């Protein structure tokens, strides 16, 4: 999977409450959630973000509650990938389950600046900063996880698998 976009930078411990504030959790509609993504930490993020853009953040991205709304909001806002030094456990699991590509790569996080254009080969784990020419290697996901993400998340992935089994 090839991803490419402009970088938006965030610090450490970005929690699920700033990714999508609880006051908006009365809906699970991705488009509605996307309207408020990152609102409390970066008020005009939603206005600036373009399809394909990439979030780069420090440690422990997505800490806090187990709400799946957080990766859903990020994905629906147009963001194609989140690169961080580390992710909180449940956010990590939820991101894969909703089909949001994520990568752990501390070296890339240290080197990439806001506004850089970055392209990512998610299958190979290669991150390239087009602005500076620097290249980084993250641990690629094993093929079955790549397939879950490519299918758009665990539910869609399983739906396809089950349909295949039934020979549809």
């Amino acid at each position, binding site marked *: 999977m090839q991803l490419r976009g402009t970088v938006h930078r965030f610090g450490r411990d970005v929690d699920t409450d700033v990714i999508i504030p609880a006051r908006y959790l009365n809906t699970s509609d991705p488009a509605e959630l996307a309207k408020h993504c990152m609102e409390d930490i970066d008020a005009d993020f939603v206005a600036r973000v373009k399809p394909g853009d990439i979030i780069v953040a420090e440690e422990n991205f997505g800490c806090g509650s*187990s709400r*799946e709304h957080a990766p859903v909001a990020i994905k629906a806002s147009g963001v194609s990938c989140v690169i961080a030094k580390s992710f909180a456990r449940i956010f990590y699991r939820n991101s894969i*389950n909703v089909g949001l590509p994520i990568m752990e790569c501390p070296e890339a996080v240290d080197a990439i600046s806001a506004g850089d254009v970055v392209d990512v080969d998610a299958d190979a784990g290669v991150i390239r900063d087009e602005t500076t020419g620097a290249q980084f290697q993250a641990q690629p996901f094993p093929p079955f996880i790549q397939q879950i993400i490519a299918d758009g998340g*665990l*539910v869609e992935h399983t739906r396809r698998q*089950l349909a295949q089994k039934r020979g549809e």
Partner: protein
Amino acid sequence: MPRPMTMAEKILARHAHLDEVVPGQLIECDLDLVLSNDITAPIAIKTFGELGADRVFDPTRICLVPDHYAPNKDIKSAEQTKCVRDFARAQGITHYWEVGCMGIEHALLPEQGVVVPGDLIIGADSHTCTYGGIGAFATGVGSTDAGVGYATGRAWFKVPRTLRFVIDGELPRYSSAKDVILHIIGKIGVDGALYAAMEFAGSTVEAMSVEGRLTIANMAIEAGGKAGLFEVDDKTRAYYAGTAERPIVEYHPDPDAEYAQVYHIDAADIVPCVSWPHLPSNTRPVAESRDVDIDQAVIGSCTNGRIEDMRAAADVLRGRRVDPWVRCIVIPATQAVWKQCVDEGLMDVFIDAGCAVSTPTCGPCLGGYMGVLADGERCISTTNRNFVGRMGAKTSEVYLANPAVAAASAVAGHIALPSDLD
């Protein structure tokens, strides 16, 4: 030769059909059981529907336990349990317990031999980690994972690193398994075991009952842990004699397994303690908590609602009366525990002491019903969480403790040790 592995690594490797796994590795595993309760099952059932699946992967490997708001506390919870019950019937699920047979899931499933040592289990309930007490790798997941698990019997995992806790020596008087885990959480913090498996060993846990080990494993999640594991020994084997639904499989860590960290703890340092509001890691010795007056005591839950806990509470309450300004609510975790309480005369002790005794339910533990707190009220509780508003109003307070301390506090009207009553 595969690399030396910890218990968690061995169980995961076996279920992924791999010779070895390393921490951080992403694997796909076959599951032995998928659990959910009356709150989480309805969402998982919805996911199951979205998958276009029509049959569950194996109707004998799904456990549906309506325990949180059952017996139904209101119309909304009645609708939820109905959804679960209809699904169980339609799918021919063998492990569904109606009110009257039901118990708190994490006490019920080991007791009935449904979860067995060596299992790999996911549950849409964070305290699924309880089954580490009998040597299973069990972890809490979201409802999406559970719904997919119903359909496929599979789940993906990131292999966790393992922290090992070696506890040796004899516990001080009135100190129990609950104090061991509160002590550990106090020491390492609520994220001290984040994403890790916790492996418990040493002479203290060897001497401990299986029930005590279940209490400790139950609270692994309160340290951020993904699982808490104990090795199978003669006590575990005896616990399962005649009840195990499936063969027991034992996994023991290799002597040269790699641990992210090893903690050595002297049991003599583990004095009876309470976790003050609003974090389980906020532990202080009971001896330094006597100034706290209480309005309510709750003795029960998946942490401390087993027969050993009932006995510990009854030993303190025998021949005594609960303070006239305290509500003491006792909830045996399962029907079998309830009956055992009757057989052993513990019910008489509770009733004579002025306790209210409830049919098995999670009830007050999550602020559901059967003992919700008003603003500013304080409760000493044998449950596992004391977050803001956990048992009721936002300004209410929960103090976590072992059953003997909770019982003694109910009598004293303030946090107390059993010896304070003499």
